[in-house]
């Protein structure tokens, strides 16, 4: 019995010991499992790093964000975009054999000089040297195949203009670091950098192409220095086309000459000659200074201070106001202007936007040069477009205001769904008379070659001697034509200026000979594109009320020139 008890007691002791050990071991194992469990939860559920990664990687599917917005035309055609292009760089510290590396790179990129390359690759104090920015994917592949240590690629966004030189004067260009240097690229640099979707311009590349092609042809034919052309929407001020020739490739802006870079349509200011008779006649009629049957003696040149005012298309007779306009009489226009008050022209020109820089979204804008003061002599010369210089865009905007009655600010951005405010310049009645007069010029006198069949073109020629060092050079001209179509309800203004056209067959290269045919051809081609359809018969509001019928010969009030 005692032995059993003793046995039991030793047994119990051992059992206790084992139990303690088991508990200890079990706790250890349980702790280990707990750690694993906690870590498991941490890794699978709470791991934030992973979560961040997922968000980042998932976001990529939303689309690549380029650093600069696209520019598109009014129909969505791409005018400027960004492309990621590889650039070749080297880390000279890692280059083992600069000479061998240079030799094999020059084989792929023949534009690089080997000696310069060796110098660049041996500069051990640097760890980054550009070898060539903007290489082609083919060249990238070839260089990669060489497998030279320390030569690598860096991807950069590069500005690209698919329309090349077609829209360069409006769109402009950037430098290598994608900073706008000219055109819309410069003016809207901040908006483009923000990149909230493509920037839509009012330009239409089809119209642009037609205008540019026709002007180019004429410039070559007349061996001219250059020229400019604009198509403007009369009802909104949107610029549908803006051409300045000669132009250049935006990718090679660095090598372009000053003449090529100069925007003749908006930056250049010129004396535009007889185009100003449109404004002069409108002022006269609107102010009530003259009526349609007022007539002036245009038989003799006017001698005033040191100037002689004479007519190119001399009619040698007494002319009515409409006759002065359609025969483009300088004498007649000057006589009309002589009746104006001192401030009348200035006030009117201000309303037409002819005395301040244009509102167009370009940095290259010319400031008009009006006469120093509005003395009588200057009022008289300004009437036929001498002594005042404005850009062709100014003239186009002002003509649009005359035929519309309201002045709209010229713009290069598309104004869809946005209210455009126009300021009233002249009455509907004066506007209608002016349109009839413009139509008469195309039907009967100097503007005949601008008459695009069935599109009812109205317009006015302008031939101005180029001013040179205070005087005028009669052998050098700026020949212009401004056309409006369709004249019964004007939609578009087309202006073309050709700078210094040369004589052909000893004929003076006037606006009617040089610029008007361009406008005629352009209108007949662009009208269907702009959804202006041919009008076969005369529309009711111009039919049967031609100006001839309005003036009764008996009622002519003659005013004889006193100067």
């Amino acid at each position, binding site marked *: 019995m005692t032995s059993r008890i003793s046995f039991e007691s030793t047994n119990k002791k051992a059992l206790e010991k084992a139990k303690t050990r088991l508990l200890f071991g079990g706790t250890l194992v349980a702790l280990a499992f707990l750690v694993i469990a906690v870590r*498991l939860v941490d890794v699978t559920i709470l791991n934030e790093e992973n979560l961040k990664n997922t968000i980042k990687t998932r976001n990529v599917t939303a689309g690549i964000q380029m650093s600069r917005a696209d520019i598109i035309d009014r129909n969505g055609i791409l005018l400027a975009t960004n492309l990621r292009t590889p650039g070749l760089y080297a880390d000279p510290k890692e280059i083992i054999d600069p000479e061998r590396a240079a030799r094999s790179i020059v084989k792929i990129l023949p534009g690089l000089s080997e000696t310069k390359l060796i110098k660049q690759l041996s500069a051990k104090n640097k760890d980054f040297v550009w070898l060539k920015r903007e290489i082609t994917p083919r060249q990238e592949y070839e260089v990669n195949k060489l497998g030279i240590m320390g030569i690598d690629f860096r991807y950069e966004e590069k500005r690209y203009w*698919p329309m090349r030189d077609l829209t360069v004067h409006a769109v402009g260009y950037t430098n290598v670091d994608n900073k706008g240097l000219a055109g819309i690229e410069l003016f809207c640099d901040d908006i483009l950098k923000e990149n909230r979707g493509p920037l839509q311009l009012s330009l239409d590349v089809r119209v642009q192409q037609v205008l540019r092609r026709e002007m180019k042809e004429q410039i070559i034919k007349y061996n001219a220095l250059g020229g400019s052309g604009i198509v403007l929407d009369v009802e909104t001020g949107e610029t549908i086309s803006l051409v300045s020739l000669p132009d250049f490739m935006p990718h090679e802006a660095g090598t372009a000459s000053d003449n090529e870079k100069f925007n003749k349509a908006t930056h250049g200011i010129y004396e535009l000659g007889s185009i100003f008779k449109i404004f002069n006649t409108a002022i006269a009629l609107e102010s009530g200074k003259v009526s349609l049957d007022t007539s002036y003696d245009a038989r003799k040149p006017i001698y005033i201070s040191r100037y002689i005012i004479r007519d190119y298309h001399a009619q040698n007779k007494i002319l009515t106001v409409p006759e002065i306009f359609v025969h483009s009489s300088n004498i007649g226009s000057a006589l009309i202007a002589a009746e104006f008050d001192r401030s009348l022209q200035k006030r009117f020109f201000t309303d037409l936007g002819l005395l301040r820089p244009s509102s167009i979204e370009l940095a290259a804008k010319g400031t008009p040069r009006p006469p120093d003061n509005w003395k009588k002599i200057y009022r008289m010369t300004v009437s036929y477009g001498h002594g005042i210089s404005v850009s062709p865009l100014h003239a186009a905007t002002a003509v649009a205001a005359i035929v519309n009655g309201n002045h709209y600010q010229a713009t290069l951005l598309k104004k869809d769904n946005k209210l455009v405010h126009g300021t009233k310049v002249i009455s509907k009645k004066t506007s209608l008379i002016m349109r009839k007069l413009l139509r008469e010029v195309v039907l009967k006198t100097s503007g005949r070659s601008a008459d695009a069949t*069935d599109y009812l073109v109205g317009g006015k020629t302008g031939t101005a001697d180029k001013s040179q060092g205070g005087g005028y050079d009669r052998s050098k001209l700026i020949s212009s034509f401004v056309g409006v179509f369709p004249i019964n309800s004007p939609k578009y203004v087309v202006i073309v200026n050709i700078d210094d056209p040369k004589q052909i067959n000893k004929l003076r290269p006037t606006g009617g000979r040089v610029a008007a045919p361009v406008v005629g051809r352009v209108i007949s081609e662009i009208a269907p594109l702009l959804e202006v359809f041919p009008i076969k018969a005369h529309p009711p509001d111009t039919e049967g009320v031609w100006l001839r019928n309005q003036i009764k010969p008996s009622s002519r009030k003659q005013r004889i020139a006193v100067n």
Partner: protein
Amino acid sequence: MKTPVILILIMLCIVAGGILFRITFEVDKLEKRLATLNHDIKENQEKVFALRADWHESNRPERLEILNSKYLKLQPLKSSQFLDASSIPQRVVPASMLTREKDPILEKGPSTNKYFSKAPLND
């Protein structure tokens, strides 16, 4: 009674842990696949950008004109090619087709006019 419950719970824990691990690995794998796909998408988008620019450049009006004069010789639209809708002769309808069958809606049943209010509709 207690022991089997604890055992079952432990088993369930193990199974749950195992499933959790499996899912984690699967998610990891999918995550990697997503990253590759995203990378591919980005690359393709870049290619699309480049091709779009190329397309617009190939379709620039000047080039199309050159191609046209070489292969198609199409001419710009002339005003004489437009016709007024009224000048198009109307289709001559045979007299037999003019006697239409009576409109069943107008003929059958009571008039529905009284259900409409007399006030003019302003819409």
